[in-house]
């Protein structure tokens, strides 16, 4: 593995007072009786950076984008007040299944992460982890004015103001809170973007990885996880 690919060793080891006990560097005795040093965050996790995936053949890419746009699988992760409008979206009246929208229980199966409202710092950490665990290509939809500029929580000490500083956002749906119709319009907009080949959030995240990480680490003091979560 080359030097630039290894992200964790580039960081200077500095004192982290919130580091959990199980993540501290420790000495382990092997089965052969030899002692060796283990740094759990480096040794137990894959430390490969996310890669930019360049579009392949133009025609194939167009077909793939059509396929991606017609089956948006949404992760059932309600991060804020907006999550109360997601169950009505799947009920007979609004029926998001018509648009190929479906809820999935795990990040590994889903392609859309809905940030449904303000993000407290504690949730942001989970949202980042969830986003990184999702398979590429992946899209982020942000609901509510609190994800755009802080909304009515602009002066709160525990909610972030702009989501696009921490995660690449494809579609914003404004409102406090957005109605289900607005959400459906947001899905249609997202489909247009995917079909036009503009929804390259995962590649953008890989390109500007260091900038995103610096922003994230600035506010998440209790990091306690590897830099990139596969």
């Amino acid at each position: 593995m080359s030097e630039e690919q290894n992200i964790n060793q580039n960081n200077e080891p500095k004192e982290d007072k919130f580091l959990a006990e199980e993540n501290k560097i420790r000495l382990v005795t092997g089965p052969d009786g030899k002692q060796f040093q283990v740094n759990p965050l480096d040794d137990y996790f894959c430390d490969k950076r996310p890669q930019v995936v360049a579009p392949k053949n133009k025609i194939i890419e167009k077909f793939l984008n059509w396929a991606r746009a017609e089956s948006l699988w949404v992760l059932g992760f309600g991060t804020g007040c907006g999550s109360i409008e997601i169950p009505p979206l799947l009920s007979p009246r609004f029926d998001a299944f018509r648009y190929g929208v479906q809820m999935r229980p795990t990040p590994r199966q889903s392609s859309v992460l809905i940030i449904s409202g303000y993000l407290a710092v504690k949730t942001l950490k989970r949202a980042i982890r969830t986003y990184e665990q999702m398979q590429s290509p992946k899209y982020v939809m942000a609901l509510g004015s609190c994800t755009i500029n802080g909304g009515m929580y602009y002066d709160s000490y525990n909610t972030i103001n702009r989501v696009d500083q921490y995660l690449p956002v494809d579609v914003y749906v404004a409102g406090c809170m957005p109605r289900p119709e607005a959400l459906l319009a947001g899905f249609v907009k997202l489909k247009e973007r995917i079909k036009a080949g503009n929804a390259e959030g995962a590649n953008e995240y890989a390109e500007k990885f260091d900038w995103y990480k610096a922003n994230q680490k600035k506010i998440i003091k209790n990091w306690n996880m590897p830099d990139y979560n596969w």
Partner: protein
Amino acid sequence: MDKIIKDLTSRFKVTDYIQQRPNMAYVTVQKELAISLITHMRDIEGFTHFVLLTAVDWIEDNLFQLTYILNSPDKKVDLGIRVMIDRENPTMDSAHHLWQQVATYQRELKEMFGIDFPGSPRVDESFILEGWDDIPPYRRDFDTLKYAEETYFPRDGRGSNDPAEYMKKKLYPDEEK
């Protein structure tokens, strides 16, 4: 209600008695006698339902006010018990042995105001915040707007109307002041 208060005045030296409404009253008690007063209210007077415990920051007087609100389901009356403690070194006796739910309130107060309750279960674990290294946020001298502007990234061009100015212009255009 009056009878109870008269009894309390002689036993526990309560002061500042305020009858808020016919079924609700507030009293102030010294820090040392607070827990025995609460125990007395629960066991003898039948105030078995614990409503809430919270703190108020009186930064001008250098005091924290702790408020315990107790409720008697049979008599249908409420009693608010105020305890004033020093702001510099805030500690208070724990009441978790009376009601198990009180431990949760005390954990929150420890985190949000920095008031210590020695002996309360899991009081030192973080409850709401994660990785907080500033002064406890609910104290009056913590400026949340300044913290938010320094820490997060405010979006450029976010306009905000001062609601007071705006409403004055819209609703009361002919008003002075």
